[in-house]
């Protein structure tokens, strides 16, 4: 017996490509712009959202038959808030510097449209196992874009990857910098993140014409 049925596999893998929450549904853009200047911050953000979304999806799925639909939004908020506070506290305890970099954006995971979107669209109507897979899949799709954007922004903007000077030392003028290369300061500004996301969307849709919406 296969570990996952075909539908379950789809739940996990579709959000990575043809149903990506950022590039196709265009949700969760704010955090993608705000914290992707460094690859490390992107990875931590991706993992945080993955934890919140997977656990939240399971919790909402378990509660789905008990909670009256009139107050479901409040219940959802309580669940997300609890999970986000957990993430925030863990980061502050074990990665204080990083939590400073991410600042309010960890707290703002609460308002990330992807999370409420998956609760409403999926967890309220499906069992816990499928909701878990859906949560993992969607947050992985979100994280994938974050990491790609973070990779290019850190590499071209600061010349580093995860803090390592991969292109040489800009002050001692070694490596590429010896040849006159310079970091692109525009990459560190949020507008460039939007342009990078835009280019990813462009590339994805020109490779798969079926994704282009009709006007």
């Amino acid at each position, binding site marked *: 017996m296969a570990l996952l049925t075909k539908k379950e596999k789809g739940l996990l893998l579709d959000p990575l490509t043809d149903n990506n929450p950022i590039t196709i549904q265009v949700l969760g853009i704010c955090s993608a712009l705000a914290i992707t200047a460094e690859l490390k911050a992107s990875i931590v953000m991706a993992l945080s959202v993955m934890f919140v979304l997977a656990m939240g999806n399971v919790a909402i799925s378990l509660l789905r038959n008990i909670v009256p639909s009139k107050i479901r939004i409040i219940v959802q908020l309580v669940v997300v808030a609890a999970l986000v506070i957990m993430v925030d506290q863990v980061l502050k305890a074990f990665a204080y510097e990083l939590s400073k970099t991410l600042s309010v954006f960890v707290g703002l995971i609460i308002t990330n449209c992807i999370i409420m979107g998956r609760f409403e669209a999926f967890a309220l109507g499906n069992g816990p196992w499928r909701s878990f897979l859906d949560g993992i899949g969607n947050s992985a799709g979100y994280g994938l874009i974050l990491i790609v954007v973070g990779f290019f922004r850190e590499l071209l903007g600061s010349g580093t990857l995860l803090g390592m000077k991969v292109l040489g030392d800009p002050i001692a003028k070694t490596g590429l910098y010896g040849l006159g290369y310079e970091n692109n*300061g525009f*990459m560190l500004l949020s507008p460039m993140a939007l342009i990078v996301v835009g280019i990813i969307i462009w590339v994805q849709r020109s490779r798969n014409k079926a994704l282009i919406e009709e006007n």
Partner: protein
Amino acid sequence: MSDKRLTFKKRLHILKHHYRGKKMAPAFNAIHTFLFSPDETTHSGSHIRGADDLKRTMNTVIMALIPVLLFSMFNAGYQHYSAINGFPQNFSLFENFLTWDNLWIGIIKVLPLLVVSYGVGLLVEFIFAVIKGHEVEEGYLVTGMLVPLIVPVDTPLWMLAVAVVFGVVIGKEVFGGTGMNILNPALTIRAFLFFAYPTWMSGDKVWVHGAVERAGGPDAISGETILGFLAQNKGAEFSYSVSDMFFGFIPGSVGETSTFLILLGGLFLVFSKIASWRIMLSAVIGALTMGLIFNGVVDAGWISEGSKFYGLMSFDFWKHLIVGGLAFGIVYMATDPVTGAQTNRGKWFYGFFIGLLSVMIRVFNPAYPEGVFLAILLMNVFAPTIDHYVVRANINRRLKRLKNAVILPKDSDGKAQELKAETV
């Protein structure tokens, strides 16, 4: 001679037929029609043949830019040697300015910028034409000429190449190519350079060739611009006269310095009806207005001499027009027919705010005392909105006139029916 040309033309013509319908066809067509007007005539119906096509328009602007380019090549050398040896005591145009030494600096510093700008820009255009399968558009001809004229003389060539790729792809091609862009591509390129590599686009070194590489050494020279001095409240430290500023013997971006030649180019564009005099005039009025307001603030004593805005605020209002890139921006950039306002009334607003905002940014942002490119880009974004309101206002005015003139059909209550915009 004519024989040779014919054979070359014929050869291109055969080549073009050979490649018809194939992938590289647009590239060959572009070379063919760039050099010669095509032989083919239209096959059906009658057509009016206009001489003022896009290529002619573009070439007129380029002609207006040629004197500026030549001047800038000499000025690159003049500023370089003056920074080293001091400015000549008795300035003579032919002995001090139009010299081979000066021109040589221009050839090794300014021409490469031009070559890179055209080479990279046209390459991107060719690639897009081949991918998309449409004809190569002439849109880059003017942009390619403008780009080297609005950057500092010591801009590294690879940076310019990166910026040109960015400007043409993100600034123009993603919107659908020539004629569809929202922002002026040349200014998009400059904005990219400015935010990506600020150390090469501002400060007191890059504006004069040699100042960067000599920095910190015993033979260091200054590359400070007039606006740079003023932004640091050091207005007394430069010795440029008003005629230096007007004729352009001052440091600055490559082609922006000579207000005189820009003015001649502007007149040429106005009389050949390529550029809008409304935009130029209203931008000048806007700049003067803002300058007068700032001068008024200083005269009224509302600002102390120690204030960091004092230097630029107390600068005579009319001198704002002859230093920095304001004149160049107004004449060659603000008048871009694609990104500017289209309606005549809209052009007045559009131009006025370009002038106003340019001087305002200059004064209030001492980090980089040049706001022309930001002002034009901002107004590029607002141009469609301005046009929209001008058109709406016109419709409403005509509706009002119509209401007074026509006896309206009455509905069942005996009340005159409301006239709606859609029915007119």
